[in-house]
């Protein structure tokens, strides 16, 4: 059995999304944005209060991560994924804002699988604990919102060959062996 390995450039179009299957190992190149617990909480509160957001979420690929501080404000520190299920509660609002996809680690609630299937918003799994390796895949980073949150601020990252696994695809498949097909 060979491991399917693919190279993809973000953002993806529907045609490309259709070709991705759960458990494919893919290298991402393009722009992604970090956001974790505190940033999600703020974004969703702002959405609910109909306030103007500091950045557009449309087609944004969100990486659930809180890096170690950058030494030069250009290169990333250690930057592996955080556990994704904590962001499940915000997923409905984020899907309504038409985000492109999410990247994190671990299993998530069924709603996230449904969103992958219906809205074509894929969930990619990044490998936990790989902070040093991912740091080398980030070519540049800048803070674009909520700088007061420190590691929990939103950073825009330009990444090159960033290794992830397709977690939930649009066909109802999951990368986790004990999840049943939707």
């Amino acid at each position, binding site marked *: 059995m060979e*491991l399917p390995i693919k190279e993809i450039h973000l953002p993806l179009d529907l045609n490309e999304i259709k070709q991705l299957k759960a458990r494919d*190992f893919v290298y991402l190149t393009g722009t992604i944005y970090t956001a974790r617990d505190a940033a999600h909480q703020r974004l969703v509160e702002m959405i609910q209060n109909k306030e103007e957001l500091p950045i557009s979420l449309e087609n944004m690929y969100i990486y659930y991560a809180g890096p170690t501080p950058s030494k030069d404000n250009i290169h990333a520190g250690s930057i592996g994924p955080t556990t994704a299920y904590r962001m499940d509660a915000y997923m409905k609002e984020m899907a309504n804002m038409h985000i492109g996809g999410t990247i994190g680690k671990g299993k998530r609630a069924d709603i996230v699988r449904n969103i992958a299937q219906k809205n074509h918003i894929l969930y990619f799994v990044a490998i936990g604990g790989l902070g040093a390796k991912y740091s080398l895949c980030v070519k540049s980073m800048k803070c674009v919102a909520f700088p007061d949150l420190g590691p929990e601020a939103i950073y825009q990252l330009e990444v090159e060959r960033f290794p992830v696994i397709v977690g939930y695809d649009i066909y109802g498949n999951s*990368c986790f062996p004990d999840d049943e097909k939707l």
Partner: protein
Amino acid sequence: MRIIPSSLIYEKVKEATKKANFVIEEDISKCLKKGCLNETNPLSKKVLEEMVDNIQIANDKHIPICQDTGIVVIFMEIGEDVFIEGSMINDINKAVKEAYLEEYLRCSVLNHPIERKNTFTNTPCIIHEKHVPGDKLKITICPKGAGSENMSQLKMLPPSAKEKGIIDFVLDVVKNAGGKACPPMIVGVGIGGNFEQSAIYSKEALLRPINDESDDIYANKLEKILLEKINQLNVGPMGFGGQMSAMAVKVKCGPCHIASLPVAVNIQCHVARHEEVIL
């Protein structure tokens, strides 16, 4: 009576805290490599290779192994013939703060669980002190990430649950942790004591090297049974399935009340960081 100045503790803790975030025990890489050789699931094999690679990169390029540089847990074994001169707790917190700021490590500690303001010093740290015979001071520094800590659980079993109840509970905790705890994990199990003591046992058990054998006959036997059963759960690296869900199980038992059977399961991810200082 041996006098140890707190300023010396400060120096040593600072140095060890820095090191702990960049270098882990060689046995972990060896164990992950062995897992790669045995793994037949191609995705899980690839994930294990990436983990080995990451540990090497962290070491070579001086990048923190994992971005979750944790809350710092410190275990101290203080010899009864040791007198510590100075304000030890303050000095330890100062050492941790400086280590985190100087090495650009992530500050993940909040002032309050509800207010949730970052202290931006990664302190206070959590310090467990124990008095032991002798005139030495042993300090173990463990930065612990939340991914695996959040998957830990404690249960007060009735004594009638016996060994089977313990095994079922541990397997449940591991299954529930799955890929969230960055497996292959190390599973610390504390049995006995009382509510808080069992939790401390479970964390102390994790301080042992992954390949050692417990000298408690019961713990030794249970570790082997549990490791085998856990590795049949098909959790695998990052939850993708496979043969290596855990690298090791470490059990620590202690005396308890006639009516209790406390069991605590502390999950440790593959980035198992600890540094020891002996003065």
